[in-house]
C-alpha cells in the first residue's frame, strides 16, 4: 500500500508533465490537423533554456523561487517565439499543400532543431542545480519532495490557466472557432494565420515549462531529451482523443501513471515500452481515443 501511494504521487508528477506536452500536440492538431513532430524539440529547448537561466540566476544568489519563476517565464516566452518562427518558416508556406508535405517538414524541423541544440549545447548531459530545492516531507508513509510539490503546483496552475484561456476568453473562442471552420471564422473577421501562430506559441510555452520541470525532476537535460517524451506525449494526446484539450490532459496523466506503475511493479527497464504499447492499442482498438468523437469532428 505504501509503495502504491508513493508510485501514485510519482505518477501524478510525471503525468502532469506529459499532459503539458500533449496539449501542444493536440491543440496544433485541432487547428491545422498536423502532428507537429518538432514539438518534442521545443520541449528540449525549454529544458535547456531553463538550465541556462536557473544556473546563472542561482549563481547570482537569487532565492530559488525567483530563479524558478524567472526561468519559467523567460523560457516559455523564448519557446513561444521559437515555435512561431518554426511555424512561419516550415509550415505556413505549405498551408495549401498536402498534409504529408507538412508532416515531412515537421520531421525535418525536428531533426534540424535537435542538431541545433547538439551543436550549440554539446552532446553531454547538462546538470540542473537541484541543490536549489531540497528535502521534502512525509505524508503518512509517503515521501513527497518539495520539488514534486512545485512541479505539480506549476502544472496545475498552467492547466487551469489554459482552460480559462480557451473556454472563457475572446481569443480562446476564436481559437475554437478557427479549429471548427476556418472559412467561416474568416467571414466573421478572425485572422486564422494569427490564431494558428498563437496556438503554436501557447503549446510551446507549455512544453517549455514541462522541459524545465523534467530537468528539475531528473536533475539534467540532454540535447535529445525531447524525442522519447515527445512520442509519449503524442501517445497521450492520441489516448485522450487527438484534438481534444481535456483528452490530452487526461491522456497525459494516464500515460504518466501507467509508466510509473509499470516501472514499479513490472520492470523499470521496460518503462518506455508501455506508452508505445498503449499507442498501438489505442490506434488499433479505439482510434478516436477516450474523449474523441467522430474523426473529422474532434477538434479543440
Amino acid at each position, binding site marked *: 500500500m505504501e509503495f502504491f501511494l508513493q508510485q501514485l504521487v510519482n505518477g501524478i508528477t510525471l503525468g502532469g508533465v506529459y499532459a503539458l506536452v500533449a496539449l501542444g500536440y493536440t491543440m496544433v492538431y485541432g487547428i491545422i490537423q498536423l502532428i507537429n513532430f518538432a514539438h518534442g524539440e521545443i520541449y528540449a529547448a525549454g529544458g535547456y533554456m531553463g538550465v541556462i537561466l536557473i544556473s546563472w540566476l542561482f549563481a547570482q544568489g537569487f532565492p530559488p523561487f525567483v530563479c524558478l519563476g524567472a526561468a519559467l517565464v523567460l523560457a516559455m516566452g523564448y519557446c513561444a517565439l521559437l515555435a512561431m518562427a518554426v511555424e512561419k518558416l516550415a509550415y505556413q508556406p505549405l498551408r495549401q499543400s498536402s498534409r504529408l508535405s507538412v508532416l515531412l517538414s515537421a520531421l525535418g524541423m525536428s531533426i534540424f532543431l535537435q542538431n541545433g541544440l547538439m551543436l550549440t549545447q554539446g552532446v553531454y548531459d547538462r546538470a540542473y542545480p537541484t541543490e536549489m530545492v531540497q528535502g521534502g516531507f512525509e505524508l503518512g508513509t509517503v515521501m513527497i519532495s518539495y520539488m514534486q510539490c512545485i512541479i505539480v503546483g506549476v502544472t496545475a496552475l498552467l492547466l487551469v490557466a489554459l482552460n480559462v484561456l480557451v473556454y472563457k476568453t475572446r481569443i480562446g*473562442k*476564436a481559437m*475554437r*472557432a478557427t479549429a*471548427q471552420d476556418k472559412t467561416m471564422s474568416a*467571414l*466573421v*473577421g*478572425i485572422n486564422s494565420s494569427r490564431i494558428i501562430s498563437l496556438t503554436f506559441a501557447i503549446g510551446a510555452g507549455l512544453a517549455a515549462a514541462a522541459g524545465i520541470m523534467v530537468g528539475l525532476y531528473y536533475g539534467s537535460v540532454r540535447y535529445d531529451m525531447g524525442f522519447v517524451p515527445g512520442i509519449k506525449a503524442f501517445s497521450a494526446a492520441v489516448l485522450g482523443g487527438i484534438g481534444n484539450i481535456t483528452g490530452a490532459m487526461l491522456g497525459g496523466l494516464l500515460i504518466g501513471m501507467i509508466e510509473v506503475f509499470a516501472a514499479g511493479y513490472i520492470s523499470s527497464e521496460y518503462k518506455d515500452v508501455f506508452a508505445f504499447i498503449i499507442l498501438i492499442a489505442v490506434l488499433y482498438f479505439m482510434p478516436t481515443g477516450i474523449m474523441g468523437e467522430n474523426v473529422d*469532428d474532434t477538434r479543440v
Partner: protein
Amino acid sequence: MTQQQPILELKNVTSAYGRIKAIREVSLKVYPGEVVSIIGANGAGKSTTLMSICGVLHPEQGEVWYDGVRIDGLASDLLPARGLCQVPEGRRIFPRLSVEENLDMGAFFRKDAAAIDHDKNRVFQLFPILQERRKQYGGTLSGGEQQMLAMGRALMSRPRLLLLDEPSLGLAPLIVQQIFRIIREINEADGVTVVLVEQNANLALKSSSRGYVLETGNVVMEDSAEALLANPDIRKAYLGE
C-alpha cells in the same frame, strides 16, 4: 436611387475553382438600402459570386468594389469590420461553440462591449428561441434555429451590406416566413442593404426591389423584381409554371 454611388459593384468578375470557371464576367450593382436578389438554378454560380465578393475566392479577372474601395484581393477577414458580412450557404454555425459564443464571434472585431451587449439583446428580441438555447452548442440546434443563429451572428457585426446565401434552404414554410420578415425588418428599420441568393425565386423576388438571373455562370437578365416576376420566361424557368 440609381443616381447614387453603388455600395457594391462587380465589374466583369470571373472566378474559377482550379481550371473550372464557375462564373464568367459577372457584373452587378447594388445601391444603398436595396434588397437585391440573385436567382438561378443549382450550380449557376450564385454562391461563387458571394464567395468572390467576400474574398474567400479571389477572382481571376474583374473588379469588386465595395463602398468606393476595390476589395478583390483583400483577405476576407478584413471585410466584416468594414460592414460587409455574409451568411454563407449551409449557415456554417460553429458546432461546438455555444449559441451565445457564436453570437460573440459575430462581434469578434468589435471592442465596444456595451454596444455589443445591446446588439446581443436585440438579436435575442428578434429570435427569442436563441436566448432560450443560449448555453447549448450551436450544432445541437434545428435547421431553422441555426439559420436564425447565423443571421443573429451576422447582425452582431452591425453590417451595412448583408449577403444571404439560401436562407430558406431546407426550412419549414413557417420558419421561412419568419426569416424573410426579419430580412425585411433589418432592411427597413436598420437600413441594411441586402443581397439575397435564392433558389426559391418567387419568395426572393417578392422581398426584393431588383433581381439578377444567373445561368451557368453568366448574368442573363437584370430587371426590377416586379418585371422579373411578370416575365413569362422567368416564370417558366424559375417559378415553376
